[in-house]
């Protein structure tokens, strides 16, 4: 049993792939960052392959796929973020693609970057910065500040606290889900090494991975539409 726990911990550990010193400060680059680069490379490569030589008429299957992906995803995100948040759709779609690919990249033998708390923290930080920036940009700083005393002044501390809890919940939900799925998969693999993991992998790696990407974007969109609504 101790063996299993050790193995699990080793699997969960985010290794430092390489490190360099920057102005006397030791910078350790984790595996998650390297896998993120792989994910980025995959996404960008796919984008380039899909969108080269695009035409208005007589489109190729490649272009049709690109158009379908872009229109479906953006319309989905647009539906969530509302009419005032149209300018944030591209960013949200990018994050959706990133988290989606990150969560299912475990199928190809990589450690999902979203299993590293630092990545989900970064995502959540960017989300909350985007949400508040959108609020300030859309409503002006006065109205944005006024939102903290709405609906009544008593709730102001809670409203301020939300700035922390919103990204924290986003970050931890994603992290916890991916981590939990990973742990359960590892346990299943230890108990029954054949067939069964494949079945569960469909749920934990594919379905749950994409679902969590959707949930993350859904909540961020919700916060943005809340922040920008008149």
């Amino acid at each position, binding site marked *: 049993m101790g063996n299993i726990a050790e193995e699990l911990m080793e699997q969960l550990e985010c290794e430092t792939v390489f490190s360099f010193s920057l102005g006397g400060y030791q910078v*350790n680059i984790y595996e998650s960052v390297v896998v993120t680069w792989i994910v980025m490379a995959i996404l*960008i490569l796919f984008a380039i392959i899909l*969108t080269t030589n695009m035409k208005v008429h007589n489109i190729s299957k490649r272009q049709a796929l690109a158009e379908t992906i872009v229109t479906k995803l953006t319309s989905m995100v647009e539906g969530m973020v509302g009419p005032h948040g149209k300018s944030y759709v591209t960013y949200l779609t990018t994050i959706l693609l*990133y988290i989606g690919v990150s969560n299912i990249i475990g199928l190809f033998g990589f450690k999902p970057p979203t299993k590293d708390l630092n990545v989900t923290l970064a995502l959540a930080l960017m989300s909350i910065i985007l949400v508040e920036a959108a609020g300030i940009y859309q409503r002006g700083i006065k109205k944005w500040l006024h939102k903290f005393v709405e609906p009544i002044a008593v709730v102001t501390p809670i409203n301020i606290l939300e700035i922390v809890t919103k990204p924290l919940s986003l970050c931890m939900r994603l992290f916890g889900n991916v981590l939990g799925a990973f742990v359960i998969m590892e346990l299943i693999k230890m108990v029954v090494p054949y067939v069964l993991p494949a079945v569960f992998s469909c749920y934990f790696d594919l379905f749950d991975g994409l679902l969590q990407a959707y949930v993350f974007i859904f909540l961020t969109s919700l916060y943005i539409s809340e922040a920008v609504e008149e």
Partner: protein
Amino acid sequence: MLSISPENIIVTVVNLLVLFVALRIFLFKPVQKILEERQKEADKELNEAKQQLEEAETLKTQYEKNIEDTEVQRKKILEEARKSADQEYQRIISDAKREAKTVKTQAVTKAEGEKAKIVKKAEKEIADIVVDAAVKVAGAKNASDMDSSLYDKFLEKAGGKS
């Protein structure tokens, strides 16, 4: 796993921003551009179709108006033709009447002239007969006999004449 390392967070943020910009350049912008172009084209075609429809509509009303005008024109021409035909008819009829009248008058005049001539001739003949009779009576033996026979002869001749 649960260790927070600020440098990795920063690197991830940079990564995500780079990914965002890259996908914007390589995926979203081109696709949106193509979609917009297609939309523009479709709009253009739609506008053209609308314009053509409008033109067709205008032409149609114009043609309808033309047809109506033609109808009015036709009626007018027909009316005029009828009127002029009527006038011509009237003219011809009156001409014919006038001519007939002239002819009749001429005929009457001529007939009257003839009659007068005949009467004159008859009168002359009667006078001759009377003179003849007088001569014959003068040649007869009995005056009273002669008188009555002369009278009878006269009556006989006059009755045969009239």
